[in-house]
């Protein structure tokens, strides 16, 4: 009698994440097509939610009227200056807390106490200090960005392998060289990951800050449209924000790809 033969079945599939470059586009198309279909069929009343083609028309009007540049320009300026300011201060403070025991002991409780405060709550105070103009908006964003940057920088520096620092010391590198050649590149992955969070926070605070005391900026545009029940313009503003967010995320991915090629 013959022994039974069994082919070996493959059972190791799945749980491996590969590249699907086209998938996000398909998802976008499906969502927008579904939205348009729901609007056309009357499932989504135009009063509550405009159809995609109306949003596109609103965007086109915005471009044609020449106001798009004004709004985006004002918002970009506030976000960039605020984010850069908050980030650079946060990097310095985070680095100091990662490296010096004194800075860490003093800084940790301060950060713990101030981080959870919603920075937008401070906007009236900042307006009092800096006036209603640009500085108070920039300061709100900077303040909101500062704390998460401190925390992510501090833990990124802390996570730099100690054996690398000891190696550098054993070859006689001084403190500035060790910070520049070992700690900074070693902390960079964590710092860039922190940028993703801080840039989202900057956008959120931007919109909130622009809802007070200004006529230009994406936030002001959305608020104005909301007050007039112009939902097509409102959603157009939201779409602009989302495009801005995507652009930032794209730039960060690019930075990660070029700076962290070694990983």
């Amino acid at each position, binding site marked *: 009698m013959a022994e039974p033969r069994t082919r070996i079945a493959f059972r190791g599939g799945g749980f491996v994440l590969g590249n699907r470059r086209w998938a996000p586009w398909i998802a976008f198309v499906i969502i927008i097509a579904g939205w348009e279909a729901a609007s056309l069929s009357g499932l989504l009343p135009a009063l509550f939610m405009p159809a995609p083609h109306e949003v596109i028309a609103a965007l086109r009007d915005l471009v044609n009227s020449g106001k798009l540049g004004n709004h985006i320009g004002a918002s970009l300026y506030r976000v960039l200056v605020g984010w850069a300011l908050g980030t650079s201060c946060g990097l310095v403070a985070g680095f100091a807390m990662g490296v010096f025991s004194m800075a860490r002991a003093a800084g940790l409780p301060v950060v713990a106490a101030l981080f959870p405060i919603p920075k937008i709550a401070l906007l009236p105070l900042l307006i009092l200090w800096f006036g209603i103009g640009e500085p108070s908006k920039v300061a709100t964003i900077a303040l909101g960005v500062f704390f998460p940057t401190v925390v992510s920088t501090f833990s990124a520096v802390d996570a730099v392998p100690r054996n*690398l620092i000891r190696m550098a010391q*054993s*070859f006689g590198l001084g403190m500035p060289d060790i910070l520049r050649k070992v700690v900074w*590149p070693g902390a960079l992955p964590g710092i860039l990951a922190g940028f993703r969070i801080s840039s989202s926070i900057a956008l959120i605070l931007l919109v909130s800050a622009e809802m007070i005391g200004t006529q230009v900026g994406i936030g002001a545009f959305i608020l104005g449209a909301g007050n007039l029940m112009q939902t097509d313009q409102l959603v157009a503003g939201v779409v602009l924000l989302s495009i801005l967010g995507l652009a930032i995320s794209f730039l960060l991915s690019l930075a990660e790809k070029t700076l962290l090629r*070694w990983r």
Partner: protein
Amino acid sequence: MRLLLRQVGHHYADLPVLEDISLDVAQGETVAIIGPSGCGKSTLLNLVGGLLPLQQGSIETLGAPPPGCLNPLTFVFQDFALLPWRDVAGNVALALEHHDLSRVERDARIQDVLALCGLSDFAKALPKQLSGGMRQRVGIARAIAVRPAVLLMDEPLSALDAQTRELLMEDLLAIWGRERTTTLYVTHNLAEAVRLADRVMVLSRRPGKVKTIIGIPIPVLERGKPQHAAALAALQEDLWQSIKIEAQVADREMLGEAQHG
């Protein structure tokens, strides 16, 4: 350069780790340090290398460092300690950049040590692209690039598989064939000790004291010859006998600590 240790002791908080270690290492001599886990071997090396502050006794070097020496006391680490964001040449360069060397001199040194360690074709490779053996070759290249007076090697081959270890030992011997550097070589591997060292210092279990120092009377570069195999095996057996009980007790102590601590 000679190395003189006199009654060196060390403790972490109230844990005594080393007691009364005295040792003279002659110019160009390799002393292997063996002893049970946790007896203070790494501590001793870090004291000699100035990575830990000296608490008791004295550690001195005697004599002038070799010409071109940039970093008299130089480590080779068990975990290689390579910067993952620098390529092979860049990792060697790290040890040189902060010294007053012209670019030409620096590049020449890098080329030189890479060739010596069989890494010339890998100068542009990142650590993650290298095997463990290749990574430690980079660690060794980086160490000899500074022309050290004393090499401090803390289990440099322990992270490697047996065959790679064998290959790297031959490489080390080949490098030492050109010029012998005074070396302290910590290892758990008795075969390594017997193969590479002029003398082997056996430490007792923690707190580590010098239990015995055994000389290996066969010239290092001749130890591969078959006529010495029996003598070396006998020496290895001697070492094993002197360390066996210590290792057994240390092993049990660890269990005790885990239960009580």
